[in-house]
C-alpha cells in the first residue's frame, strides 16, 4: 500500500495529483481514465480543504492511500474535517446541467464530476474521520472478468 499525508491546504492539490497519477500509471490506466480519477480526487480534496477545514476554521491533514489488486485501483482520502458525505449533499441535478450559464448556481459541479467520473465511489464515516473511496477497474481485470462470466 502506498500512502501520502499532506496539509489540508490548496497547495496540496499538486502533490495529491502527482500521487494519484503515479498510482494510475502503476496499474496502466489509460490517459483518459487516469485524468478522470485525478479530477475526481482533486474535486473532493478541494471540498475537504475549502469547506471541511478552511470555512470551518479548522486545520488538519489529508491522508491518501492507494491499494492495488488484480481487478482494481482503490484510492482513499481521509480527513478529520467536519462530517461531509458527497453522496448526500449538493449533488447537482441533471436539470441544472441544461441551464444556461447566466442562470447557473456555482455549487455542486465538482461533486458531480467526481462521482460520475469513477467506476465506484463510496463514503464512510469512521470515528472522527471522513473516508472517501475512489475505485477504478483495471483494464486487464475487466477483460478477464467478462471471459470468466460468459
Amino acid at each position, binding site marked *: 500500500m502506498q500512502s501520502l499525508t499532506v496539509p489540508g491546504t*490548496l*497547495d496540496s*492539490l499538486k502533490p495529491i*495529483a502527482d500521487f494519484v497519477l503515479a498510482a494510475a500509471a502503476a496499474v496502466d490506466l489509460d490517459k483518459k481514465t487516469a485524468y478522470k480519477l485525478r*479530477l475526481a480526487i*482533486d*474535486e473532493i480534496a478541494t471540498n475537504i480543504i475549502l469547506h471541511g477545514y478552511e470555512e470551518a476554521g479548522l486545520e488538519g491533514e489529508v491522508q491518501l492511500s492507494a491499494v492495488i489488486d488484480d481487478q482494481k485501483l482503490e484510492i482513499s482520502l481521509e480527513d478529520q474535517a467536519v462530517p461531509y458525505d458527497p453522496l448526500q449533499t449538493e449533488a447537482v441535478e441533471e436539470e441544472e446541467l441544461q441551464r444556461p*450559464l447566466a442562470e*447557473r448556481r456555482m455549487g455542486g459541479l*465538482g461533486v458531480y464530476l467526481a462521482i460520475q467520473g469513477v467506476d465506484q465511489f463510496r463514503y464512510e464515516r469512521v470515528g472522527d474521520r471522513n473516508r472517501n473511496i475512489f475505485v477504478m477497474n483495471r483494464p486487464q481485470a475487466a477483460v478477464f472478468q467478462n471471459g470468466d462470466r460468459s
Partner: protein
Amino acid sequence: MTFNATTIIADKTATITLVGELDAASASAFRTEVEKAAAANPEHLVLQMSGLEFMASAGLRVLIFAKQKMGANVDIYIVAPQEMVLETLQKTGFDQSVIIVDSYEPAVTA
C-alpha cells in the same frame, strides 16, 4: 505544470490564453484576468485553451462568473480545448452556453 493566464484586449475582443493546470489553487489567477477583461467591456471573450492540460470545476465556476459579470450578450469562445477539458465542458452542459471552435479569427473591420 503551473498555471498561467494572460490577457490581450484589442478591437472589442478580450483574449485570455490559459496554459497549464487550472484547479482551485490557480482559479483566482484566471478570475483576475476575467475581471481585467470585463473592465474593458468587450463584445467577445476568447479563451485560448490549447495549452490547458487540466481543468477542475473551479475553472467552470470562473466561466459562470465571466458570463454573469460580462452579461449574456457577450459571446464566450473556447478555442482548441484538449480532449478531456472538452469532455468536462460537454458533460456539464457548458458547451451549450459557450462557442467551442478549433481556431478564432477576429472579424475583419473595414
